[in-house]
């Protein structure tokens, strides 16, 4: 295929998306009432998927999405054209979900210490690690395995689960995560490492070869 001015097909697709977003933002900032419904129709499903990862109930996830769109509507005038609309909305729905989580009653939680590796006095692991049976990319294709992984994430204590979601799933930086949670960057790093270790422990018995 002949490329126009060195821009690939994928590049043009991305540029088209930015152009459509820019048009939508301009209409929103001009007070076009139809533009808001277009925004909601275009982005409510991706935002709902994000909120569902944080909030355990569908009702609370939908409330967070509604909070996010109201917040976006109020602050659209401050939207910087240098940002991606999807990235801006993503950040807003993450914050709305975190706000909802803070108001919810906590569930009984397992002690994360029980899921961390244990060591002998000489520094070796009490139970040496064994390689998993298949590559992760293949295992996670199976719906059964995907369910096991999601259930294991759900078992993590809340302060660890949230950091894992923000860093490894939503791909926010350490600094962005620290700011969103009001904790230090070092605390984010410590919680993330412990969350990954605990999740690894929870997955280990399933991944050693008993998932087919």
């Amino acid at each position, binding site marked *: 295929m002949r490329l126009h001015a060195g821009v690939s097909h994928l590049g043009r697709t991305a540029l088209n998306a930015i152009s459509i977003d820019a048009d939508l933002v301009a209409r929103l900032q001009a007070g076009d*009432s139809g533009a*808001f*419904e277009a925004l*909601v*129709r275009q982005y*409510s*499903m991706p935002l*709902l*998927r994000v909120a569902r*990862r944080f909030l355990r109930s569908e009702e609370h996830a*939908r409330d967070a*999405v*509604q909070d996010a*769109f*109201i917040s976006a*509507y109020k602050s659209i005038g401050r939207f910087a054209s240098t940002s991606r609309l999807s990235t801006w909305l993503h950040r807003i729905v993450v914050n709305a979900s975190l706000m909802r989580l803070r108001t919810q009653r906590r569930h009984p939680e397992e002690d994360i210490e029980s899921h961390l*590796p244990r*060591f002998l006095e*000489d*520094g*070796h*692991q009490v139970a*040496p*690690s*064994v*390689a*998993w049976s298949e*590559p*992760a*990319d293949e*295992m*996670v294709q199976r719906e059964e*395995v*995907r*369910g096991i*992984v*999601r259930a294991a*994430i759900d078992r993590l204590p809340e302060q660890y689960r949230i950091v*894992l*979601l923000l860093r*490894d*799933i939503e791909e926010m930086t350490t600094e962005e995560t620290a700011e969103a949670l009001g904790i230090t960057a070092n605390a984010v*790093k410590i919680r*993330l*490492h412990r969350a*990954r*270790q605990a*999740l*690894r422990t929870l*997955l*280990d018995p399933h*991944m050693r070869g008993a998932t087919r």
Partner: protein
Amino acid sequence: MSERPYLPCREIIAFLADYLDGALAAETRSEFDRHLAVCPSCVAYLASYRDTIRMAKAASIDADADDPPEELVRAIVASVHGE
């Protein structure tokens, strides 16, 4: 041949995230690599730790192209336009 003691597994696992992020000083990284060359347990732990990160991401991302729930769209639009 080097007489230096190896880092203990405890140290390897404690700083695994920094190792994967490339955040360790060159000297410390070479000590990590020296340990991994002789410790199958830490090699297995490192691989499964890395797999855990990949699987958490892949299992959490739902790529279904569903339409948004109509009642949610209407509720959001009404909340802003006061319908």
